[in-house]
């Protein structure tokens, strides 16, 4: 019985061994191909080829926004194999061995030395210590000093000879330097102490100015730098004057991840991103960068590279999906004019906000659009009380209502109109017609005419001049001002916004409930300059709209109003501005009284040039200027300079043309 039981026990073991052997046979012989497919997956590194974010460019092709020359590189110090790393001192030696006359580099080296010393000090204080390796089994311990002679290894339980290991983390950067020998910034950036601690206890550093090729090479072959994980991440550069148009970018948030990895994107032919793809890219946060984020971001490429453990073996990168760099956005912005516009808006310290817009009268292209304020808003597209520059709308409404330009009204310095509204004017103009009233910016004339023609006529004129609707510039906001027709609508519950006949005296002179954006106003004068052609502003080439219609009313009355606008510069409020005369401009000044006690002024000037063959229209407004300032004196000269710059730019382009041919 005993022997039988022993035999059964043995047989039981043999049966189990048989099952295991059968499983091994199935794995190694029968199903080997299937398993080898998994092996292929296991032995290849799948990596992203980061798409280059598209440029946003000026008309001359120079970038308003572009990626920095190179990429950011994120190095995460993971499972560093200390034995493979050079020491920190070696890294220092690498720097010191590179001769340079560049005083900047010399300073950086001094700073590097000091910061490294502080880094060592911090580590010592925190008790990070050095790693020591058991000579018998390779097990490592960390301690400030060498382990005592009788200290045993935890792994092999003997008292071995302890070998000091080089310091981890920074030491391996010497290898990176060797990888990218022409780029000292790479290692300098890290060595200068830009190491940050991530939530999962990894260290990382963002390195600016790494060539794309170097970043990708490191991302593809991390084994060359054992323990490193590297991700290429582009860095965005935006031209200063173009910031209000370009907007900004940021690192992706969790919401971005949710949005970009939503499978519904596939239904609208959008690339559905993976987590890794999202986190290795930049996301547009405002204006063009945000509105055209999908186009600018591009689609990251994906590739596999077999991991070959044998030295010297040749490997071939297998591209799963080719990288698609982001598209380039071509804008209508002229670099030189934009720079000047930006210079103008930041140059007036008394203004709470300032904005400037230049428009191509022939095409509607926005040549420059600058804004400067403390609130971060784009004031070129925000509603502002216009003052006398609004009188163009009143003038059009007057003429459209059948009133002749030669018909006069009586203006007194202070007067009242039917309905009890009162007005004040700069002077006693007595009997005054439209041209003279426009030239001298007579409040009496326009207050009385506005009250005479009523809200509907004023709204109609505003619509003809382009103030009624919004523009789709691609900047993220469709409505850039209150809709003209809306002003008279009885559906508007908020009576502060509705126009009533009793409001018209103030509205007629650009006060009270009158408001518009600088962009709208320059469009109104551009349509006047274009003889009533219904041009629409555009910012991006892909949103360009060709002008096909002409407004018959504007076309009929344009000569009168153009003459009036010209008289403003020749003999009216703008006569003292040499810059306007230099470009043979026509236009209108405006000074709106704002603030609780009307203690501030919005000073405007809007004009176009040359008046006989208009090419560009421009507007400049300084908001919240002190009392006593006037539109013509404050904004007239800047408008003249903008028009001159725009005309100069176009002349330069035209003169270059034949040479190129």
């Amino acid at each position, binding site marked *: 019985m005993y022997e039988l039981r*022993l035999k059964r026990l043995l047989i039981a073991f043999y049966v189990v*061994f048989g*099952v*295991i052997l059968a499983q*091994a046979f199935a794995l*190694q012989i029968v199903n080997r191909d299937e398993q080898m497919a998994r092996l292929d997956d*296991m*032995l290849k590194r799948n990596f992203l080829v980061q798409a280059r974010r598209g440029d946003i460019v000026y008309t001359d092709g120079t970038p308003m926004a572009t990626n920095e020359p190179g990429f950011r590189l994120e190095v995460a110090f993971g499972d560093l194999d200390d034995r493979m790393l050079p020491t920190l001192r070696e890294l220092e030696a690498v720097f010191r061995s590179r001769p340079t006359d560049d005083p900047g580099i010399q300073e950086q080296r001094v700073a590097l030395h000091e910061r490294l010393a502080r880094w060592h000090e911090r580590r010592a204080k925190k008790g990070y210590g050095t790693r020591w390796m058991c000579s018998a089994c*390779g097990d490592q311990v960390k301690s400030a000093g060498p382990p005592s002679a009788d200290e045993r290894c935890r792994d092999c339980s003997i008292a071995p000879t302890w070998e000091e290991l080089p310091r981890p983390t920074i030491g391996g950067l010497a290898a990176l330097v060797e990888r990218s020998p022409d780029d000292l910034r790479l290692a300098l950036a890290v060595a200068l102490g830009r190491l940050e601690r991530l939530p999962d206890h990894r260290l990382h550093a963002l390195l600016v100015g790494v060539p794309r090729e170097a970043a990708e090479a490191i991302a593809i072959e991390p084994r060359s730098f054992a323990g490193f994980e590297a991700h290429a991440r582009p860095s965005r550069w935006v031209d200063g004057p173009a910031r209000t148009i370009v907007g900004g970018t940021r690192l992706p948030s969790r919401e971005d991840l949710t949005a970009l990895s939503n499978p519904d994107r596939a239904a609208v032919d959008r690339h559905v991103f993976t987590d890794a793809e999202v986190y290795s890219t930049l996301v547009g946060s405002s204006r063009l960068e945000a509105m055209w984020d999908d186009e600018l971001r591009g689609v990251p490429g994906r590739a596999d590279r077999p991991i070959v453990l044998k030295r010297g073996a040749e490997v071939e990168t297998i591209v799963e999906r080719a990288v698609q760099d982001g598209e380039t956005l071509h804008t209508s912005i002229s670099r030189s004019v934009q720079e000047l516009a930006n210079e103008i808006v930041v140059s007036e310290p008394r203004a709470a906000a300032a904005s400037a817009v230049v428009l191509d009268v022939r095409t509607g292209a926005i040549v420059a659009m600058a804004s400067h304020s403390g609130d971060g808003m784009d004031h070129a597209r925000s509603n502002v009380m216009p003052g006398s520059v609004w009188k163009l709308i009143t003038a059009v409404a007057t003429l459209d209502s059948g009133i002749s330009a030669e018909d006069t009204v009586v203006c007194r310095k202070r007067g009242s109109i039917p309905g009890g509204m009162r007005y004040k004017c700069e002077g006693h103009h007595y009997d005054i017609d439209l041209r003279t009233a426009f030239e001298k910016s007579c409040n009496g004339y326009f207050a009385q005419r506005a009250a005479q023609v009523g809200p509907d006529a004023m709204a109609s004129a505003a619509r003809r001049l382009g103030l009624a609707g919004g523009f789709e510039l691609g900047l993220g906001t469709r409505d850039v001002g209150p809709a003209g027709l809306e002003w008279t609508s009885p559906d508007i519950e908020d009576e502060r916004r509705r126009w009533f006949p009793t409001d018209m005296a103030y509205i007629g002179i650009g006060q009270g409930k009158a408001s518009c954006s600088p962009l709208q106003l320059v469009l109104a004068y551009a349509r006047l300059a274009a003889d009533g052609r219904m041009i629409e502003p555009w910012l991006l080439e892909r949103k360009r709209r060709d002008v096909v219609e002409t407004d018959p009313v504007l076309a009929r009355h344009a000569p009168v109003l153009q003459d009036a606008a010209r008289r403003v510069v020749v003999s009216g409020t703008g006569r003292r501005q040499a810059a306007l005369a230099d470009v043979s401009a026509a236009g209108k000044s405006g000074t709106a009284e704002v603030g609780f006690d009307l203690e501030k002024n919005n000073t405007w000037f809007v004009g176009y040039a040359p008046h006989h063959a208009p090419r560009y229209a421009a507007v400049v407004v300084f908001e919240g200027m002190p009392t006593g300032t006037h539109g013509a004196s404050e904004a007239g000269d800047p408008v003249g300079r903008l028009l001159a710059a725009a005309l100069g730019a176009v002349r330069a382009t035209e003169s270059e043309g034949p040479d190129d041919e």
Partner: protein
Amino acid sequence: MTSEAARPAAPSLATSRWRHLVAALDLRVLGPALALVTLGLIALASDRPAAAAAQLRWTAAGVTLFLAVLVVPYRRMLQLIYPAFAVTLVLLVLVLFFGRTTNQATRWLSLGPIGFQPSEVAKVALVAVLARYIRFRRDHRTIKGLVVPFLLTLVPLALIVKQPDLGTALMLVPVLFAMLWAAGAQPRHLRTVVLLGVLSLPIVYFGLKPYQRARIHAFAAPVAAMVGIGADGDASSGASTVARADTYHVERSVTAIAAGGLTGSGFGEGLVKNRVPESSTDFVFTVFAEEWGFLGVLLLMGLECALLLGLASIAREEKEPAARLLAVGAMVLFGVQACVNLAMTVGLAPITGLPLPFLSYGGSSMLTCWLLLGLALNVRAHRPVVFAERDFD
């Protein structure tokens, strides 16, 4: 197997001791054991040369221990086994309080310059104490008589579970059953105990630590474990992490074994072994299978079978009950440990953390294997004339 009739006549006392010692070096057992050690050293040399060197030193120490154990008659050792077993239990208690914690388990005890796992010693001690207790008794053939052997097993088992080291603890159960069965316990009694054990499994399951449950989940439902459904359905729990890690380990191991094919990739040429965790200890078979292929696996299995066969032969040839039980206990310990480890690496069993005898890297494991082998072969060196006229039955 050698027969009684073929044995030569008894020589003088002085020479007979050495001749008995030499006779104890049974090649049916020593051959496969040394071959397995060699295969283990080759696999380690390919994977971690430094570890192979250390393993060689541990092997030398193990062989020395083996020879030392051979010298002392096993009956003398068994006379001291109760105090020794008590010391082992004390060590198991001490390790809970003063042990070194590694990977969230407190298994190591440092005594002066020596560091060891008392649970490894406990396995050998249990075999010896059971052999001593059962050898001249017949009451284990009654249900009541099973109480003491079970208590002798359950006390160290509970202490080892407390460390926690579930894999080693569960090793003790088959040893107990096999030794009782070999000693003539009634199958129906053992079946009853097994049935009770099965019925208590739900209680045992809920008494497991989350990571231990997760390991069972990972084995039962690797896909669920991969998507993060852990023991408590909490994807962020540590148990889920363990489950994912275990699935990952097994996947890597299975792929590496498959990569070996028929003839293997050759010494040092394995590609996947570097991606298998614990490749020098629990998954040493994986390294071996990748570099030696199915033919190597066949060789290793053959050696394992030969080792068990050799031990079974000793158990069969011996007449003294304690000697038989020692041989049976050693055979079952080696057999179960090898089966569990190999089944784990090929994906047929959950991960338990048991080393492969004679192959896996580790000093405690190697010394225990040689100690156990020494006990098993000791019965041949110090064979009494006749103690039992008939077998257990």
